[in-house]
């Protein structure tokens, strides 16, 4: 533990760990020092000069080393003649900081005036309008008239597509370099840079194709102005028109905390839709970032079935009848379902003495339920990534592996193909056996050991044999881990369904595969299955479809690959007559004489020794680390099993 340092900011005393920078210390006592270039996750650069403050330091007698005192016995404070950038100054004992003195405020206002010299007045059409740092500070401190009395301002290109996903407006850019530093410091992919100099300085992409990074969307969050925007959200909505609902990303098993921003949309006939996905802070999972795959998740499903073709009453009856009549009904799910759905299905299967399988191409489920998180690995730790290209499969795991290396962890990558993680690894092999061997060697010297694997049962077993502190499966779905925690049996092919009556719940692809082999299928899905169903109906097989709600419409929980249970909330009204998956199962069960809970929270409590309230606890320390438009986590950081 480092010693805490006590200083005074605007007359208030605050104690913070040594090394804390002044803006973060100020934030702790509710004082906002205006910043543009500073971001708490990155090294300070002191470029924008917006955070100018007066800093005084206690005087010391050079010969005795004793503090010099004023006549009244208080410590004498030396004030420099210059204002200083607070972001580049770590706190020191007895320091006195004035952030709102006349001199400090004058300096800050002067910097703001410089920023605004040629800044376009297009806030009314700017995507950032309403959540823009420059706009906020201008409203708070800016003058009403520009002293830059030239007809011709400095103009620059306004529509630069850095990539298919990210647009740059060079006129709005204030050259703070947050985006450049995010890519080089945090991601380790320096695909953005500055070109030219002075007042001609502008952002450029240095990669081919442009802005080649799986994390590019984060730069639009940390951009303090509207220079970087996403193609998807461009002119899509005003920030204040949207609701914000806490959710969990469904694109991979990392479990990034997100916010779904929703609004009624004219393009969809006035329906409330998800306009954009934003990161929500969770320092144990995704910090303040999300990957582009998660950010640009497509929630639209125009051709989705919104009610059973034969009506709910008949559909439930048919499902129950067929399952009851079957000799050996089988229950199959995949990891796209929330825990609550999984639990009700498993309960029903257990009650009727049927097998409950979770379909997963990645093996070793039962091996991963023993160990925990891979956490914030660092010096002294060793990580083996085997069989998975994390950059594609689980980008935030990739980012964390890279950051673990930054902190001094040893990384071994064993994949058949080259991956972007190779650059950061101390050992790279293209053969699993060699990878396991290298890991064994590295693990013998390491404190905490982590294996992230993607492969069959045999590979999982070999990994488990190395006895890592954490064994993490890189599953294809967001909640596959949840199924293992509940005791589902793993299957990687659907041969067992041949000629059987099957309750299938999950993605449409799973339903379609089941339809090919099973005798009768009860299909519960939130996805579009109409095509699959019509093909099957044409071929004479039988099925009943039970359209369920998707994640954006439901309350429930996911368990991440790291065994963190996290809550998501309904963000948009349910489509048509769809029902929550666990309600559908409960209704089918009822017809079969089995009573199941129908409230998400009750179901959850049946399985976990936890409540939704436990999952909703927050960590107040975290918000000190927020910079940019990432959402503060007020809805809970989940619970690590």
């Amino acid at each position, binding site marked *: 533990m480092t010693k805490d340092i006590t200083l005074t900011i605007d007359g208030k005393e605050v104690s913070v760990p040594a090394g804390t920078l002044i803006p973060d210390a100020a934030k702790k006592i509710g004082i906002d020092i205006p910043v543009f270039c500073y971001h708490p996750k990155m090294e*300070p650069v002191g470029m924008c000069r917006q955070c100018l403050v007066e800093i005084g330091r206690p005087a010391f007698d050079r010969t005795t080393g004793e503090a010099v005192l004023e006549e009244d016995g208080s410590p004498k404070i030396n004030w420099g003649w210059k204002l200083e950038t607070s972001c580049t100054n770590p706190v020191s004992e007895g320091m006195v900081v004035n952030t709102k003195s006349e001199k400090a405020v004058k300096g800050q206002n002067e910097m703001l005036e410089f920023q605004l010299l040629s800044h376009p007045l297009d806030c009314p059409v700017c995507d950032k309008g309403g959540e823009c740092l420059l706009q906020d500070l201008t409203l708070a401190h800016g003058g009403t008239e520009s002293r830059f009395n030239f007809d011709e301002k400095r103009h620059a290109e306004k529509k630069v597509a850095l990539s298919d996903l990210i647009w740059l407006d060079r006129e709005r850019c204030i050259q703070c370099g947050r985006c450049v530093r995010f890519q080089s410091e945090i991601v380790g992919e320096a695909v953005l840079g500055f070109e030219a100099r002075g007042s001609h300085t502008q952002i450029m992409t240095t990669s081919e194709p442009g802005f080649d990074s799986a994390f590019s969307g984060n730069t639009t969050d940390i951009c303090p102005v509207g220079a970087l925007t996403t193609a998807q959200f461009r002119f899509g909505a005003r920030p204040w028109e949207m609701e914000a609902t806490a959710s969990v990303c469904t694109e991979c098993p990392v479990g990034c905390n997100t916010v779904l921003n929703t609004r009624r949309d004219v393009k969809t006939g006035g329906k409330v839709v998800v306009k954009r996905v934003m990161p929500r802070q969770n320092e144990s999972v995704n910090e303040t970032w999300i990957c582009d795959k998660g950010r640009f998740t497509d929630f639209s499903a125009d051709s989705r079935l919104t009610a059973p073709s034969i009506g709910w009453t008949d559909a439930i009856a048919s499902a129950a009848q067929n399952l009851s009549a079957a000799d050996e009904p089988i229950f199959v799910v995949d990891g796209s379902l929330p825990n609550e759905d999984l639990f009700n299905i498993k309960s029903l299967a257990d009650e009727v003495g049927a097998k409950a399988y979770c379909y997963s191409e990645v093996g070793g489920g039962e091996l991963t339920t023993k160990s925990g998180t891979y956490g914030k690995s660092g010096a002294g730790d060793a990580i083996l990534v085997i069989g998975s290209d994390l950059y594609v499969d689980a980008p935030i795991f990739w980012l964390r592996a890279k950051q673990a290396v930054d902190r001094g962890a040893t990384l071994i990558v064993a994949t058949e193909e080259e991956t972007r993680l190779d650059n950061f690894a101390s050992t790279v092999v293209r053969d699993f056996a060699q990878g396991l061997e290298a890991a064994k060697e590295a693990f013998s010297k390491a404190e905490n050991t982590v294996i992230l694997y993607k492969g069959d049962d045999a590979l999982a077993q070999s990994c488990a044999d190395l006895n890592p502190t954490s064994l993490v499966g890189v599953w294809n779905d967001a909640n596959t881990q949840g199924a293992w925690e509940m005791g589902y049996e793993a299957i990687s092919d659907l041969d067992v369904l041949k000629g059987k009556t099957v309750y299938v719940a999950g993605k449409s692809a799973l339903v379609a595969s089941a339809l090919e082999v099973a005798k009768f299928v009860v299909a519960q899905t939130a996805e579009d299955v109409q095509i699959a169903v019509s093909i099957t109906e044409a071929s004479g097989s039988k099925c009943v479809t039970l359209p369920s709600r998707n994640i954006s419409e439901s309350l429930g929980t996911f368990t991440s690959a790291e065994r963190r249970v996290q809550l998501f909330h309904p963000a948009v009204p349910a489509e048509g007559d769809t029902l929550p998956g666990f309600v559908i199962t409960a209704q089918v069960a009822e017809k079969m004489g089995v009573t199941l809970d129908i409230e998400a929270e009750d179901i959850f409590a049946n399985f976990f020794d936890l409540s939704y309230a436990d999952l909703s606890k927050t960590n107040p320390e975290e918000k000190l680390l927020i910079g940019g438009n990432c959402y503060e986590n007020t809805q809970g950081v989940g619970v690590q099993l």
Partner: protein
Amino acid sequence: MDYMLLRHRDINNINQIDTFLKEDGFEGFKKALKMETVDVTNEVKAAGLRGRGGAGFPAGVKWSFMDNNNWPHYVVANADESEPGTFKDREIMESNPFQFLEGIAIASYAVGANAAYVYLRGEFWEVAHFLDEKIEEMEKAGFLGENIQGSEYSLKIYTHLGAGAYICGEETALLESMEGKRGQPRVRPPFPPSEGLYNKPTVVNNVETLSSVPYIIKNGAEGYRKFGTEKSPGTKIFSLSGNVNNPGNYELPLGTTFRELIFTHGGGIPDGKSIKAIMPAGASSSLIVANDEALDTAMDYESVPNVGGDLGSASVIVVDDSVSLDWLITKTMDFFHHESCGKCTPCREGSYWMKKLTERIHSGEGTEKDVELLKDVAYQIQGKTLCALGEFSTMAVVTSIERFPEDFKI
């Protein structure tokens, strides 16, 4: 007086190694190699040698700041010489290169560096090639390389070219540029002797500073202190330009008056005009009103501030009474706007704003308000920039308007 730095003016062919050796070449370095490293630094400290790049920081003190818990150490010679009106380092490197390289070698020995770099502005590519040849000759003669002169000490010197940016004369921007990054200044502290090139302790000294070192070691601090003043010892090369009859480099003891430089050595003002203002430190200068008091002021680090300027790199630009200063600051602002690196807001935006205002004022379309605004903008920049460039850009502007108001009457 014999030249201490511009020795080639006394001795033909001193840029040839044989001649240099005959003329006591490398005697300082040979002597240093037999001394304790700390004694070398202490000798330079005692000599009171102050940095000739502009800031005037005592060189020996800088060397003593090197962090001995962090290795390796580097020495970098700042040969970016970009200040308008400064052209002294080039003459040293072209005509008296071995003395300069010897200075680098002594400094490197003193701080325990086994690699030293000469960072030259891109336009000096011919000088760089020339220095490369001289470095090779020194290696062949056993003054560079492994176990120099039978000692334990080894040193390599490399040249490195910049790419045409004034800002790279700022020591941390220079280091960034050497590391292959954009030439932009770093936040200081940490200063280079703690974290410099590749985050290792680094001494960055100007060419002229380093070229003064061999004399100090050979003749001792006392020998050096025979020249100049007590607080500004030694000789200095004054690059004289502007409205004078004989522009050029003049090596004179520090403390020589402006009058002597401009009228005795420089031959006075041409065409019977009279002197109006002096820019003692190139484009970064304040404009000193060239009255008798100023002309009789000693050119040293302590005295020039008394008449409202700084000695800086001692590139003395003479302005005669035919020059209207609204024109002059249009020129300096064009320069600083062009050279602002763009890293920090006040310099990037302020130099742009000042350029626009000076142009409007000079074109005759400006108003009195514009002049006031120009001064305001300059004040608004002062004390708030990341490095000294932004600060310097305001000096000529503010002092011209304040000291020569008649040139800005609308």
